């Protein structure tokens, strides 16, 4: 099992997750990576991703696991990078005997949101609240949701907001959270200026970067 850590930046950040899966799989074919296929009636490539970033949000920490016969991770990464569009290059590659099931064990993601203006420090206080309700768009309308338990950390440094938000099975969408902040604190952070910088897994009660976990 090869796991690639890759970017999703610039123009590619406007490509939906469903389309990204197709882009990835076509890339694997171009890279001639010997991917295993399912044995069902309609065989499909055995590939796995983690919780996607919302449309427009950029990422430096996407993970893509490939069940394949190749085991030379450096060679796979070289071939993968030569076969992918701009904005989806791999930055690290790992080999594991077994599928680490990242989608099941990632619990948080780190993001940096950059604003043209200096951001108010009060934003940081949100993390200490027992209850914090945001309105988020959902299919068919707008819903209210208490997300206090899903905000792990917030730090403002000048025009940057560093966020650690729940990711995976319990998930807080970075775009929905930023839209709420824009409204409540009269900021103008653009969704395309949010970057996911890391995904974190929980090991022995501690959050560690998925990249460290895979090493």
């Amino acid at each position, binding site marked *: 099992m090869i796991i690639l850590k890759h970017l999703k930046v610039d123009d590619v950040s*406007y490509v939906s997750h469903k*389309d*990204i899966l197709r882009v990835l799989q*076509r*890339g694997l*074919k171009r890279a001639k990576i010997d991917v295993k296929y399912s044995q069902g009636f309609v065989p499909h490539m055995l590939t796995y991703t983690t919780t996607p970033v919302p449309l*427009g949000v950029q990422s430096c920490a996407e993970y893509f696991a490939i069940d394949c016969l190749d085991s030379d991770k450096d060679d796979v990464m070289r071939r993968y990078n030569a076969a992918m569009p701009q904005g989806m290059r791999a930055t690290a590659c790992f080999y594991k005997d077994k599928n680490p099931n990242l989608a099941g064990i990632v619990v948080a993601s780190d993001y940096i949101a950059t604003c043209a203006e200096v951001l108010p420090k009060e934003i940081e206080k949100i993390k200490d609240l027992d209850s914090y309700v945001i309105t988020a768009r959902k299919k068919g309308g707008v819903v209210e949701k208490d997300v206090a338990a899903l905000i792990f950390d917030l730090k403002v440094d000048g025009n940057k907001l560093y966020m650690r938000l729940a990711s995976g099975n319990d998930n807080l969408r970075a775009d929905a959270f930023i839209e709420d902040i824009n409204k409540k604190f009269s900021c103008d952070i653009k969704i395309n200026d949010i970057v996911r910088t890391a995904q974190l897994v929980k090991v022995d009660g501690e959050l560690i970067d998925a990249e460290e976990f895979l090493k």
Partner: protein
Amino acid sequence: MSGERALDKLKDILLKVQKPARYVGGEYNLPDMEKFCEERVCLCFSDKYEVGMSNVGTRILYHMLNDTEGVVCERAYAPDLDMAALLKENGLPLFSLETKKDIKEFDLIGFSVQFELQFTNIVYMLDLIGVPYFAKDRGEDIPPIVAGGPCVVNPMPFADFFDAVLIGEGEKNLDELVKLHRECRKNNLTKSEFLKKACELDGVFVPSLNNPTKRAVVEDLDKAYYPTKILVPNCDIVHDRSSIELFRGCANGCRFCQAGFYYRPIRKGSVDTLVRQACELMDSTGYDEMGLLSLSTSDYPELKELVDRIKVEADARKVKLALPSLRLDSFEAEIYEEMQGASLTFAPEAGTQRLRDVINKNISDENIKSSLISALKYGVKNVKLYFIMGLPTETEEDLQGIVNIVKLVKYLHSQYGTSKLLNITVSTSIFIPKPLTPFQWERQISIEEMRAKQEFMREKLRIKNVKYSWHGAQSSVIEAVFARGDRSLAKAIVKAYELGCVFDSWSENFDYDKWIKAFEESSIDYQKFLEGFAEDDELPWDVIDNGVSKKYLLAERKKAYEGISTPNCIGKCNGCGANRLQRCGL
């Protein structure tokens, strides 16, 4: 607005529109946009990204120009209505996908015009680019805007929007036009001086000069430019696959079919070239499917060898082959079984042998029967049948013939079918007497006749597991008007656009009443284009020599009325005249 500020605004807009991936480019195999460049061209496609990206012709020209030294070519597609509204609201012009550049800033702008119902989209895009609609109103500060594509068979309705119209195959004349423009700019020639020189090139029609123009065609498909490192889109498009072109032109001469005559002379690629192109495309794209394209695939003389050789390569790469346009008479069950799976598409076009002889669809009742039996034995579950209504000399008996074919399919399924259930889909379109066909002098049936025929079919095809769908009568009228019209129609196109007509080929946007109002307000009697032409009438498109001679078309028309069919020209030339342009033959 500065470029940077425009890009910032664009970022905001992109998250407010549907499918933003359509507007950002960044596809795999993107050519080098930073290379040394003396001529920057933008190719505009007058429909949405997912349609434009599926078009093989534009794909060839895009890569051909980018592979030309000193030339960079970018793309623009008609943005969807939500995007267009936001561009206008934010004071942004239409931009190119690759470098997000204002299209007015290019040295040369090209439009691909694929379909009569896209004509308002030309005006829509010119509006978004921010230039006057008519070429005569555009000054030296605006680059020349040229058009090409299949609709140039009769470019008259839209000719006045363009400085030049490229008649024929772009591989032959677009790069020459680009070279010429580059030279003219170096020598500080004016736009009109450039256009005077341009009409000396093969297949360049300059509407302001109304110069008689002969269609430009490539000599040899084997030597013609064909890209094997093509753009692979990041989002879903209509035909999301790579493709190779087996041959251009068609030998069958169905008398209603414009493509069949327009793309003559017939030129084919060799098996070796096609296999090489197929392998390179499979490797460079990663697509799961490859189309083997032509107007009548089974006429390719070495089809079996070609498919066998490509299939070995495709299987190794887990790529599925698609063979559209197999003719009913040459249906090869073996190939069919491999390629098509559980669905079969047949286009007998007319319900009776008599009418098929009139339209020169050279397939007999016996062919239909034997082909269906083979298909049903292979376990086909879906049969799609395509017919045309309103053909010259058509009677109720011919419509009843369609019903009889459907009943025959059902009967044959009960006798030979190996699948439990058989779904039959019958689709009818309305006959449009298109230019450059033997039926170009015919009238189009009235909208009342169309509806009566559709009603007849609806009643008769209330059969279990048979689905009947039909092409809109109203859109067929508009399509016919613009296929056969003259230069007076340009003002009606602008008027229709001003009334809100755009993306007319998308049924949800088509508004017939607005079109009728546009004709009225432009004082155009559109009905006159639906009536037949006399054989000695001067036709609006006569200034264009598309290859096939008028004499041949008239002779074919005469044979149609006599119910005499013409055999295909694979073995023996029928003398249509297309070989005046280039050597012809399979």
